[in-house]
């Protein structure tokens, strides 16, 4: 009975924490961007502007949720749900601390990869269903982007899998007891981080949205809470990719003195802040540049990493 309640708490927690965190992340990002542009950002509502989040939520819930008459209604409604669903499903795989994870799946990493690839459908379908040329261009770009990063994203992770000898995320974290994989897998980390940024559609790879070229890209036609789902989905996937980088390359929950959950949260927030810093500093690439970069540089790098790791594992085992 106790165990069932514990599991229930973990499940609800894993569902609720990313959702609230990503809402908070919107405020944090605005504050951080402001800091790096020598401004203050939202600091009026509550202490440090923290109540900006409930204020924004109330606003977006009260907004009119409008479906354009020319849109493909069913697909238009399903699209924002897909991104939330797929990203939240991935969170179920993440080991937050020893014993605190929703599902201890043996193919956990594969499942996360599959779910994150599902997220692209959301963007592509939203662009298609909106029946608007800018949205369609956004969706097209998202598909082109997906074609370029998904391949080397998977390949870059194979090094970690080889080193840990498992697809299970908990075992991958436990395999990093002595050395974090960021040292032997530095190439893989590099490739995976770039793929992760592309995965979240964030600056410098935010071509599907590209608000200065495509109005708002794939979600031009969305309003109200459907837009909110895309918005929050993007922030949750930022948190997801940061958490994945921590889990796979920076020893997950492991660290001295502090409790494991705190370590996990600390490491993850460092990478989230890194994402925001990137948005503050870097310009947007063209999508053909990303494709060329992906196929001509990062794919060979990921393959090289895989070969080197394989040779290393073979030689030492």
């Amino acid at each position, binding site marked *: 009975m106790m165990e069932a309640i514990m599991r229930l708490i973990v499940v609800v927690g894993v569902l609720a924490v990313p959702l609230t965190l990503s809402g908070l992340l919107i405020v944090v990002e605005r504050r951080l961007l402001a*800091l790096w542009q*020598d401004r*203050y950002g939202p600091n009026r509502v509550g202490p440090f502007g923290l109540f900006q989040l409930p204020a924004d939520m109330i606003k977006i819930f009260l907004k009119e949720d409008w479906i354009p008459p020319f849109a493909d209604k069913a697909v238009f409604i399903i699209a924002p749900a897909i991104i939330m669903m797929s990203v939240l499903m991935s969170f179920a795989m993440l080991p937050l601390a020893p014993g605190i994870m929703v599902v201890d799946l043996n193919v956990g990493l594969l499942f996360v990869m599959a779910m994150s690839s599902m997220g692209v459908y959301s963007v592509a379908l939203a662009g298609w269903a909106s029946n608007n040329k800018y949205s369609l261009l956004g969706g097209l770009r998202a598909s082109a982007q997906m074609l370029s990063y998904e391949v080397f994203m998977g390949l870059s992770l194979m090094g970690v899998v080889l080193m840990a000898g498992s697809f299970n995320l908990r075992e991958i974290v436990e395999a990093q007891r002595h050395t974090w994989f960021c040292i032997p897998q530095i190439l893989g980390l590099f490739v995976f981080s770039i793929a992760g940024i592309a995965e979240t559609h964030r600056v410098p790879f935010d071509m599907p949205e590209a608000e200065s070229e495509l109005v708002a890209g794939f979600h031009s036609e969305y309003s109200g809470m459907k837009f909110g789902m895309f918005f929050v989905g993007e922030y949750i996937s930022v948190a997801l990719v940061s958490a994945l980088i921590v889990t796979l390359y920076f020893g997950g929950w492991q660290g001295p003195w502090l409790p494991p959950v705190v370590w996990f949260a600390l490491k993850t927030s460092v990478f989230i802040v890194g994402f925001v*810093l*990137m948005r503050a*500093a*870097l310009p947007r690439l063209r999508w053909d540049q990303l494709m060329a970069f992906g196929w001509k540089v990062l794919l060979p790098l990921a393959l090289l990493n895989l070969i080197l790791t394989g040779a290393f594992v073979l030689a030492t085992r």
Partner: protein
Amino acid sequence: MFSLFRSMWMVFLHSFRRRITVEYPTVMPRIAPRWRGRIILSRDPDGKERCVACYLCSVACPVGCIALQATEDETGRRYPEFFRINFSRCIFCGMCEEACPTYAIQLTPDFEMCECNRQNLVYEKEHLLISGTGKYPDYSFYNVAGLAIGGKAKGEAENEAPPVDVRGLNL
């Protein structure tokens, strides 16, 4: 690649810079004394209206927001019967101040003049007239002008000699 990390680092260094935002409603920004804000009508050092109702400000105004009507008191001193500035039209260009020959109309550093009702932005003379002299504390137009008005005959102004009787023979 290196330049990307360099620019990220340089942006990060901005965390330690001073923020340039002035949190206006709680902190007043520094406003220059020559700021072109709310328009006022000033008075002489001896407390009389400086405006001589010459209409030059009204003519100079590019948006035509100044309306006035000239009149004279019994001593021959001109003054505006009414003086009206529609601040919902005013663009605070300062042309009226430049045009004014008597330093009567002046722009001040005050800019906080929002109204909920547009009609309240139309300022009449009683709203425009201040009790002081504004930017030119010692200037009084009639003291440097040759015109005779009540209390000051011809030749009594500053740097002015008494009038010469050109028809007199004993020059």
